[in-house]
């Protein structure tokens, strides 16, 4: 076995790193870290393949395994969440010892086979006729082993179809299309619904909560901007109450203490316009609407 100096250097740099990464797969706690270790090993393998004049194998390894299969794994792992670590409790009694035993057995088998294998001297691509990778592979796959390849393809497609069938759910009702939804929305116009989303709740300097009505261009509160439930419950905060609260806040800042007989500025909103000081602007405008709502 001969390898050029550069290839040997590449191998001795890459191989220990790959071994470290594969050990990392065993010992890291988080599943995503393990996935990253596997990714590293796969890319290292791909680089070694390319160095051994098998660029097709190397690139396909990255495209298929790293790009698609590991991505699917990661897709599932990410849904587990960032804090999820492997649990160390044994679900099957003695599973650790059984696993260790099987692992040692597998290692022994592999070692004995590899140690007895006789490797023929390596030959480069040039000695084998200089046919580029994809062409040579295509000749083997699509000429010599075409039946086997087709059978494997049919098997895989069958398995994929089976997966689809097993996870298929029958739809209970017809799914509404975007067109149907739009038509229904237009059809509801005469019943007083709106085409557009309802106006958002108001934004004041102190408050942009759901219970605060927006102010229209005429300065009056927009009724629909507060959720209907809040209005029916009478939990809508009137614009005047809010203004009054802001006034008191200004007083607090100016005087340096809450005025006597008043609640603190950030107290929970009062339900109706009852607490509003009399004579505040817009009071008469808002209060009757609240009554009507109930």
């Amino acid at each position: 076995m001969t390898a050029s100096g550069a290839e040997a250097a590449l191998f001795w740099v890459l191989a220990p790193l790959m071994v470290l990464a594969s050990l990392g797969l065993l010992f890291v706690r988080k599943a995503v870290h393990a996935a990253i270790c596997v990714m590293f090993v796969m890319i290292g393998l791909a680089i070694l393949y390319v160095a051994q004049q098998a660029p097709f194998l190397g690139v396909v390894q990255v495209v298929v395994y790293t790009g698609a299969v590991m991505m699917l794994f990661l897709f599932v792992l990410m849904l587990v969440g960032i804090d999820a670590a492997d649990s160390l409790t044994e679900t099957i009694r003695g599973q650790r010892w059984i696993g260790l035993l099987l692992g040692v057995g597998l290692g022994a088998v592999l070692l004995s086979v590899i140690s007895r294998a006789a490797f023929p001297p390596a030959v480069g691509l040039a000695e084998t006729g200089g046919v580029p990778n994809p062409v040579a592979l295509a000749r083997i796959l699509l000429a010599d082993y075409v039946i086997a390849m087709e059978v494997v393809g049919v098997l895989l497609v069958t398995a994929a179809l089976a997966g689809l069938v097993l996870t298929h759910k029958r739809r209970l009702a017809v799914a509404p299309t975007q067109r149907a939804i739009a038509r229904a929305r237009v059809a509801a116009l005469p019943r007083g619904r709106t085409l557009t989303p309802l106006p958002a709740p108001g934004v004041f300097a102190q408050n942009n909560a759901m219970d605060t009505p927006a102010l229209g261009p005429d300065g009056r509160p927009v009724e629909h901007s507060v959720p209907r439930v809040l209005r029916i419950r009478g939990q809508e905060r009137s614009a005047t109450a809010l203004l009054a609260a802001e006034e008191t806040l200004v007083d607090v800042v100016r005087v340096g203490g809450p005025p006597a007989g008043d609640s603190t500025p950030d107290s929970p909103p009062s339900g109706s316009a009852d607490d509003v000081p009399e004579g505040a602007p817009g009071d008469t405008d808002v209060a009757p609407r609240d009554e009507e709502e109930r």
Partner: protein
Amino acid sequence: MIPGVAADFSNDAIWVSAIKAVLIVVFLLTSVLFAIWFERKVVARMQVRPGPNWHGPFGLLQSLADAMKLLLKEDVTVTRADRVVYLLAPMISVFCALLVFAVVPFGPSVTIPFTDFTTPAQLTDFPVAVLYVLACAAMGVYGIVLGGWSSGSTYPLLGSVRSTAQVISYELAMGLSLVSVFIMAGSMSTSQIVASQAGVWWFLPLLPAFVVYVISMIGETNRLPFDLPEAEGELVSGYMTEYSSMKFAWFFLAEYINMLNVSAIATTLFLGGWRAPWPLSAIADGALNTGWWPVLWFLVKLWAVMFVFVWVRGTLLRLRYDQFMSLGWKVLIPVALGWVVVLSVFQYLGLAGITRTQLVVGVLVVAALVIALMWLWPERRPAAPPGGAADEGAPGTFDAFADGFPVPPLPGQSLPPSPRARRHVPPAGATTGAADATSTAVDRPEETR
């Protein structure tokens, strides 16, 4: 000579490759600065506003100023982040984005001025160069996915999950559309594919594949209308929400380099690579296809594709996620698959000795047959609408507010007699007011929420 590759790299010593690599990186970084300016300026023109015009001539230095600002900003690492992966993710993105241009041919063999040293205007090439591009793109997505996951927050995670699904589905369509180029060119090496386009550029004979490629390339680079992983209306900014300063700049850089990458691949595979466009290529027996001219044609085509990116962004709205997925799986992949099958049949027939005229005549005959069959096929009676039948009513009756619109009578319907007409000829005991009230009755205002 590498077998199966058109370009000849036998002159390239290691220092030549190193210089080429540095030049490519410099080209990419300056192109990104230009691309940001280009995008802002073109989008601004489309929206009838001036765009950046303050820093430098035509605002060209605006993106440089923005880059400096990003460099000097505070680098925030959120507490719940997984620190190693959080740092690794933007690096993966940029690294993989920088790799692709290694196999893109800027031109044929060029002679360095004032010397007689000749080298291909391309860093390297090998028999599976286009697959290598796909591999780099697939790896680059790990940056997005891991970045979103390691931020330890909800919106980035949603962005990265979307990105995973997006990449898996759109890479299939992209790969299948590239397969038809491989079939026609008989090679996966970029220089060989450009060499095979001496006669006709592949985007014309392979138009369906080109359309699929253009759509999936926009999906692959997360650009509008497919920018679901960073949809700012839904996910703040998706996978890069928690990133700031230089790490954010890396993601930003990677996105724009990826745009350049897929544009360069579209140019190389479908638009003739560095070849001069038709009327120019005929001048002086192809003199414009030699020397340094091809670099110009390549850049012109590259930026034309980049313009398409910006144009699409300025024109189209973001798709809804399920629509996006069904577009990928139910439209793009079947179309690409079917096209590959059709193309393989044609290639087989061509290899079997059938001439091109025979093929064209055969296609025309089959098309005529299909059209005749469709013409003569009995039209299917429209099925009765399941739920909405009550709204439509019987064909004779006229609903003035069908579907909520004030509508004129359809053919077969007749206007009811006008209440005002009846006023002139009042029948005995008729009350006109009641009929009016029932037809336009509005329910009590009721809202949803």
